[in-house]
């Protein structure tokens, strides 16, 4: 029997069509799909989106005068979340708990056998679980700035491992990169990264900006914006992601305009308040880079100190998204009533309920609320 004269005309297109269709159907199973199933570590947790379920703070009795009031204000306003408190001794935990008093959140001690400071933020980055896994992965840096000459900071480097050893569903890993947790601000889509991180890695761990960006994007699972100009400080001191592709950036110009020269001079900032053109330009440069990345930028009053470290910043905040509402636990400072009020108005204009946390005792030591509190898990 011979073939039908038109059979070749049908056989080839039909065969090719079937083959391509089968390949397209099989591809997710053979390619990305299998990798997604195998990957158990997801993206860096957002600073603004999602419901906070677990937090980590550190406490040392010698920092009581610095951290006790911010902790009390913050912990008393928290809803029912779990707060792990890293301490050297159980009595340190009891001491803090007695000062804080009754809370809706539950405080749980975690005694570690290494030195710590009370600044938990810079110790690690929390990456979501992925592919059906449940464990959050804490990525610690290869090394911390100043750790060689700072014993407590050297101990801080072990915080991620201590958490992973003590808690269920927490893993720890150490990156080959040098960074502080405070070098990042993210909304779960984009990670904004400080120039300090670039400075600490270029030529040491990476050969180029492009390599650094690629390695960070791989690690964080997010788009990375390497800020090329910014203040010499942690990102959360001068900017914050607030959701809906919006970024808040500090604005000393607004703060200057809100205050009389006498009021500005009276602000208790080391080296006096710094409203210099160079500093204003550095804040503006951050705003411009965020806008170039496709973000709506909103400015918020901020008063930086002349020492380049002490800031009246309302951005060093903890953000929560719960039952359809957004809440910000925002720093306030004694002696800055007008700035406090103006900053709260900006947060409210973005749809946030503002819960104030007095950070007067901590800003003198170069950090406020976000520097003291790390989010371990968001739902």
């Amino acid at each position: 029997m011979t073939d039908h004269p038109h059979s070749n005309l049908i056989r080839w297109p039909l065969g090719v069509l079937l083959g391509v269709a089968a390949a397209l159907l099989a591809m997710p199973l053979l390619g990305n799909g299998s990798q997604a199933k195998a990957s158990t570590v997801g993206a860096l947790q957002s600073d603004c989106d999602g419901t906070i379920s677990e937090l980590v703070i550190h406490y040392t009795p010698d920092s009581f005068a610095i951290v006790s009031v911010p902790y009390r204000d913050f912990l008393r306003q928290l809803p029912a979340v779990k707060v792990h408190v890293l301490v050297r001794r159980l009595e340190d935990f009891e001491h803090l708990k007695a000062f804080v008093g009754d809370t809706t959140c539950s405080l749980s001690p975690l005694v570690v056998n290494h030195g710590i400071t009370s600044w938990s933020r810079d110790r690690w980055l929390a990456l979501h679980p992925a592919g059906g896994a449940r464990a959050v992965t804490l990525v610690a840096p290869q090394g911390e700035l100043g750790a060689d000459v700072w014993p407590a900071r050297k101990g801080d480097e072990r915080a991620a491992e201590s958490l992973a050893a003590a808690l269920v569903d927490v893993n720890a890993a150490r990156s080959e990169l040098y960074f502080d947790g405070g070098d990042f601000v993210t909304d779960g889509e984009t990670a904004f990264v400080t120039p300090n991180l670039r400075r600490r890695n270029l030529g040491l761990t990476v050969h180029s900006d492009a390599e650094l960006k690629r390695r960070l994007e791989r690690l964080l699972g997010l788009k990375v914006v390497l800020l090329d100009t910014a203040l010499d400080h942690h990102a959360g001191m001068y900017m914050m992601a607030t959701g809906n592709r919006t970024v808040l950036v500090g604005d000393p110009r607004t703060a200057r305009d809100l205050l009389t020269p006498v009021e500005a001079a009276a602000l208790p900032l080391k080296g006096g308040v710094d409203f210099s053109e160079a500093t204003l330009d550095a804040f503006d440069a951050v705003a411009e880079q965020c806008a170039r990345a496709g973000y709506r930028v909103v400015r918020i009053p901020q008063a930086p100190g002349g020492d380049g470290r002490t800031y009246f910043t309302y951005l060093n905040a903890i953000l929560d998204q719960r039952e359809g509402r957004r809440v910000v636990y925002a720093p306030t400072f004694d002696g800055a009533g007008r700035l406090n009020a103006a900053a709260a108005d900006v947060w409210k204009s973005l749809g946030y309920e503002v819960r104030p946390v007095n950070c007067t005792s901590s800003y003198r030591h170069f950090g406020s609320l976000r520097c003291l509190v790390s989010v371990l898990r968001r739902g």
Partner: protein
Amino acid sequence: MSFPARNTLATLGIAAVSMFATLALLSPRHADAEDEEVKTAENLRVIKPYIGEPSVEQDGCKLTLKIDKESYAAGEKPVVTLEISNTSGKALTRTFDVSMSGRNVEAMSRMPAMPRLLWEGSREVTLAAGETKTITFETGFALKDNESVAIRIGKEELLERPIRIRTEN
């Protein structure tokens, strides 16, 4: 074999070849090998090798920064060496800046203070195409045990290398 059966088999054969060809061409396995790696805590724990001797490209030169010790005790004075290779293909005369900055560590603070300049040096060097020269700087600055110190190449902070200081703790 009947005509319909033979025709079906031939069509399926063409389909199979088309499927493998499509997978070979479009499969994500052709992507960057690094992107292929699954992301797990175990993988992240593997520290990839990093650059032993920091180097950077600037104005047709490759600059490699070396210091005379892996770590220093307080009071020691680092000696810095800059290896300069002319990669531009033509003779060059360039001025190279090296500096050392320190950040004071205040025990209770969140981070070290702003950096302050501890020492700086500058040298003009002429290099033939492809030539490599080494220049040495004696910093003459005694390190302290409460200051985080780094060596930098270039006024625009092209490259920074931390100095490790041994402490009693």
